[in-house]
């Protein structure tokens, strides 16, 4: 099988949410001498990003996205293991992410976590019901570049503003880039509270975080 054929089959497997074929392609790619990062970048990431985009467009739905993200996670584990053996560190940037205090919704946030990991970010998922203080404490401890917050309720969005205020107070505002998301959250809200970016969906979140790290 040529490199291109492996990339294509890898991409197809992720798009179909076929974990078994995806894992097989990861092993086959590594065995045929393709570098782990090259394999991820050319084969699997185009697949998961396409799934993320189709989800964002409403062409496919949560079940398909979950199956694709699960398949991707299996691939990442296989490839990370091989990279570790070879002593190669793959690191796009470090993100701490969570659903804000008082909010127990975390389906959306979990999808963002899967896509970020799939794209090679080091992600610390703080789960749900996370206070502004804890976001800051964890970001400091993790050495994060990005703090991502999700709010699914109109009553909990205020925690996103509280985080901005507390970062300012502590003189840490310029140390991190912040990104906000969640059903009731808008671009306008992000601007008003002074967040660095707004993500309309999971794939958009990955794009915006890449932009933030470049900019």
């Amino acid at each position: 099988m040529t490199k291109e054929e492996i990339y294509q089959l890898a991409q197809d497997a992720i798009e179909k949410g076929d974990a078994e074929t995806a894992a097989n392609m990861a092993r086959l790619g590594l065995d045929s001498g393709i570098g782990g990062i090259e394999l991820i970048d050319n084969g699997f990431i185009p697949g998961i990003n396409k799934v993320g985009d189709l989800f964002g467009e409403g062409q496919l739905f949560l079940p398909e996205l979950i199956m694709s993200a699960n398949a991707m996670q299996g691939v990442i584990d296989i490839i990370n293991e091989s990279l570790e053996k070879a002593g190669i560190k793959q690191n796009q940037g470090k993100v701490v992410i969570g659903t804000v205090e008082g909010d127990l919704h975390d389906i959306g946030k979990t999808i963002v976590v899967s896509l970020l990991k799939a794209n090679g970010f080091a992600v610390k998922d703080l789960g749900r019901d996370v206070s502004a203080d804890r976001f800051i404490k964890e970001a400091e401890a993790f050495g994060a570049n990005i703090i991502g917050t999700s709010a699914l309720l109109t009553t909990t969005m205020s925690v996103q503003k509280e985080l901005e205020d507390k970062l300012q107070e502590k003189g840490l505002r310029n140390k991190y880039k912040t990104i906000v998301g969640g059903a009731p959250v808008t671009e306008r809200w992000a601007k008003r509270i002074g967040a660095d970016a707004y993500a309309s969906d999971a794939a958009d979140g990955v794009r915006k975080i890449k932009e933030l790290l470049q900019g």
Partner: protein
Amino acid sequence: MEQFLTRIHRGEILIADGAMGSLLMARAKDLIKGKCPELVNLSRPDILEEVAALYLDAGADIIQTNTFGGSPLKLEDYSLQDNMEEINRTAVNAVRKIVDERGRNAYVSASCGPSGKMLRPYGPIAPDTMYDNFFRQLRVIIDAGADIICIETMTDIQEAVLAVKAAKTISPSIPVMATMTFDLKPRGFFTMMGVSISKAAAELETAGADIIGSNCGNGIENMIKIAHEFKNYSKLPLIIQANAGLPEIIDGKAIYPETPGFMAEKSKELVAAGVSIIGGCCGTTPRHIGAIRSVVRG
């Protein structure tokens, strides 16, 4: 009191109530902000009575209980699963008390929302566990004397079907309403889990629901389209509970765009589409329900 389903089948249009959360928040902010909304049931059932009275006096025929998140799996999020019985029983009793006091021909409708957990293979929950989750909540609710079960805001058809079956197993005669939440996507209306209106209609009907439809979503205009589509796929009576559009946050407050007048005017189109029960969801108030009633029932 005349039977609920008899009135529906005779062609009467009934009015359901509107949003619960915002009214509770206004009265018990310290108790529930960032916490479980059903906590009100444990310590302030008087607030549940007050809210029920507001909607009843606004003209609602169907008053919902504050039990949306009252299933054991959902209550686990707040470590309140041991209070499951009391939470559900108190909520039914509070609405029952007000409905009986007012002496109107109104009904206690027990709300039953999603478990918040996903079924296999997308999540960890086995179908039996999900069924048991709803069975336990609904047994308390039905024992407490609810008139109707309202399974609502569902996005996974399998979860919704398990809830309907649990209700009908406990009491084959209790009327069960089942509604799902749809978004408009490029290929039409679908739930977050990818369920179309045709699939929802077919499977809810097969499961034994007496009344089907939609709640929440994005405003009443989409709901008119959703109602027409349901009518293409099912002869069952329809319930529609629209929200007042998507909120804007202004000065820390959620402001919903659709006014009582606007929603009332648009409700005429729901009637024309053949909807049997019209109520509200997020952002609707007793004023919305009053306005809808006066337009629909004159």
